[in-house]
């Protein structure tokens, strides 16, 4: 049997106010662009989350026990659903109730905390786990790190935290000559199972679907299923990992993406040797083919599949160093609001906006960047960070004098 594993990433950051200036430091502690966050969330809910969730519900009813998908929803996205559009959460809960949908653990704040603070990382994974349990009544056993950032250490740490399956990018620097279409095991691990994204087949849907210059345009469910079926005999798991916003948001409805997805399960299941699985079921169905050694970080971003979307230029490095530098000071306040505010600044998107790589990935970065330039993003972030630092200092000063 060959299995298809669909995994969708759902994430929305709390974007900062575009006009948070030097003059706001010390005067204004409202950092977030409430209006934009609400508008974007509701727009994406209408175009993607709600219609796609309802479509998946239909497909699950149509193929009981057979059509399965998985999600990772960042804690900050869940918070925004709670705040701006609780109906989205309800539809996710409806999906959870079918038993054919797995919810995966990640960092609550969609952060790069694994790289900068293991303590913070652990806390955020725990928070996320609780959120999943609270809403979806399941305890995640699968883990994926922010933006599929992965190396041997991430796998070992996740294993220690009790997870038995982990997702990563099937990048060339991970796989070398090997195929992504098998279950693997991280080097030095005994229990952990590693699922690697088939980026060719994933990106056919996520990025190339509506590209008229692509030789395979237009992509039909039938054509796509034939590519999948051709793997019969040379693979076991085909991992299709993508942003959930692919449906209706990155690929608009008029590209035919919904019709494609509606027809896909039927086309795939026409072949008796093919099935859909949730990530947690992979380990029950397959044995790892071999161990994979990944000493360096990989991610699913850009062509490099590395960390350079978030780290590497001085804007990114100086601001992320500073924001983690104050961790102890923030936590010492024991003020849940301040800690939450600080944690929201750890969200990886802030550093993604500061990326200055403007070559082939520039378009994607631009699409996702609410600021005019990486420099604007940096200035706003540092203004906010300076206000937060000053707020905390004043608070501890007042405490001392009280």
């Amino acid at each position, binding site marked *: 049997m060959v299995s298809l594993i669909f995994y969708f990433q759902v994430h929305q950051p709390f974007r900062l106010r575009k006009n948070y*200036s*030097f*003059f*706001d*430091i*010390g*005067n204004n502690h409202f950092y977030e662009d409430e209006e934009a966050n609400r508008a974007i969330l509701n727009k994406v809910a209408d175009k993607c989350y709600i219609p796609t969730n309802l479509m998946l519900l239909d497909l699950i009813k149509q193929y009981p026990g057979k059509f399965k998908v998985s999600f990772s929803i960042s804690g900050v996205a869940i918070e925004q659903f709670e705040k701006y559009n609780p109906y989205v959460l309800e539809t996710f809960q409806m999906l959870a109730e079918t038993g054919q949908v797995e919810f995966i653990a990640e960092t609550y704040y969609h952060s790069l905390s694994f790289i900068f603070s293991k303590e913070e990382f652990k806390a955020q994974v725990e928070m996320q786990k609780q959120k999943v349990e609270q809403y979806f009544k399941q305890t995640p056993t699968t883990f994926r790190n922010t933006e599929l950032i992965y190396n041997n250490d991430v796998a070992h740490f996740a294993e220690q935290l009790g997870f038995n399956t982990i997702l990563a990018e099937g990048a060339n620097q991970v796989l070398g000559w090997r195929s992504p279409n098998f279950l693997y095991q991280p080097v030095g691990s005994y229990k952990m199972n590693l699922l690697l994204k088939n980026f060719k087949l994933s990106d056919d849907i996520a990025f190339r679907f509506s590209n008229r210059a692509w030789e395979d345009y237009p992509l039909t469910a039938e054509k796509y299923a034939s590519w999948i079926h051709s793997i019969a005999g040379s693979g076991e798991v085909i991992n299709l990992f993508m942003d959930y916003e692919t449906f209706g948001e990155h690929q608009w409805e008029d590209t035919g993406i919904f019709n494609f997805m509606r027809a896909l399960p039927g086309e795939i299941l026409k072949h008796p040797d093919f099935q859909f699985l949730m990530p947690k079921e992979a380990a029950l169905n397959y044995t790892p083919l071999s161990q994979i050694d990944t000493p360096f970080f990989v991610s699913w971003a850009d062509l490099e599949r590395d960390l350079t979307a978030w780290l590497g*230029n*001085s*804007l990114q*490095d*100086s*601001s992320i*160093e*500073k924001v983690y530098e104050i961790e102890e000071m923030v936590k010492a306040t024991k003020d849940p609001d301040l800690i939450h505010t600080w944690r929201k600044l750890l969200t990886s998107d802030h550093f993604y906006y500061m990326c200055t790589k403007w070559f082939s990935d520039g378009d994607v970065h631009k699409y996702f960047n609410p600021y005019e*330039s990486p*420099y604007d993003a*940096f*200035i706003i972030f*540092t*203004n906010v*960070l*300076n206000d937060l*630092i*000053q707020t905390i200092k004043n608070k501890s000063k007042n405490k001392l004098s009280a």
Partner: protein
Amino acid sequence: MKVLMFGWEFPPFISGGLGTASYGIAKGLIHNDVDLTFVMPTRRGLKFESGINIIAADEVHTIERFNKIITTLKKYDTSTITKSFTIAPYFTSEDYMEYFNTHHDMIELKKVLQSQKGLLHFTGNYGKNLLDEVYRYGIIGEIIGFGNDFDIIHAHDWLTFHAGVAAKRSSGKQLVVHVHATEFDRSGENVNQQVYDIERFGMENADKIIAVSYFTKNIITSRYGIHPDKVEVVHNAVDKNRRLDAYGIKKNVDEKIVLFLGRITMQKGPDYFMEAAHRVYKKYKNVRFVMAGSGDMLPRMITRMASLRMIDRFHFTGFLKGIDVERMYALSDLYVMPSVSEPFGIAPFEALLYDVPIIISRQSGVAEVLKNAIKVDFWDINKLSEMILMLIENDKVANEVAEKCKEDMSNIGWDNAGLRIKNVYESVLKN
């Protein structure tokens, strides 16, 4: 160009900042070839600098003036004077006599003419009869307006607004009112309604309003309902109250602020500021640096700052305009202009308006005028950082530098203000 200017005080008679400003503006205008007649309530027997035509309201012989007016009206037919009256455009000399006999101001005037031998009484003080004097000043304005020997009228603050508007009415000439302070500045939220009404009356009847700051302009538009296009901002050259309080703001950070404000281009030397800032930053933490402005070097400066890891002490504001420029200067403790080459450069003057001490490069033209400014070679980063440290650590020296520089620049500052006011006149007269 002939200007009829109404003020309330004038050196040597000064009790507030208005006198200094009026004097500075008058001199600045004269230096810019404006023929100025300055009207004030009374000379109080004091001597005034020659070269300025002064009319004291308490010396205006109203009976004489009125006889002249009536004769003038009789001499000309109605069409020549119709445009003089905004309220009743078809006045004849008979109508005028009628107006003279019934209108409130005129009835009072008539009484005064009879009782005081044609002279009105003014103290020029700010005492309890202030409002009466303000109205009487209006009568003088109306009478002087009939003289009609000027191109434009200029009135300073609410005390003179009645006079200005009356002169406009009787002369048909255009009126510029100058707002140095509003009732909201003087009294907070507990405004005196009568004063507010006069201010608003003046602003509404003016053809143009000059505000002394964007902050004031903001009050004029938001509190008095005046369209922003009608308000021009001309900063006075010297103003004692330009620090934070004047803008209703408090300092937003605890540290001293060192400012670079200008285009972020090679010519202005932002990179030298950056490197000097870093040297200071390594030794001294009670300071923040702000680079305000934009330009082709901005991305490079931001990247450099990030590389130097100063993000908790170095800020960029982007291009600032209007009220934000004022706020930025008012918040600053030191202004640095490390220009590589600068023919003149007005920014140090602006900084001094806000009592901010300055460091300028020897390579800038202003260095010649500002004899008391701290000067360094733009390339001498070590010296620059030493000087920054010295001034932010030593308030006394910093204040001295600011004070002395202000003396150096006061003439130039007023000439500049005069020129800008002249430009306002020209734009008004063009319409």
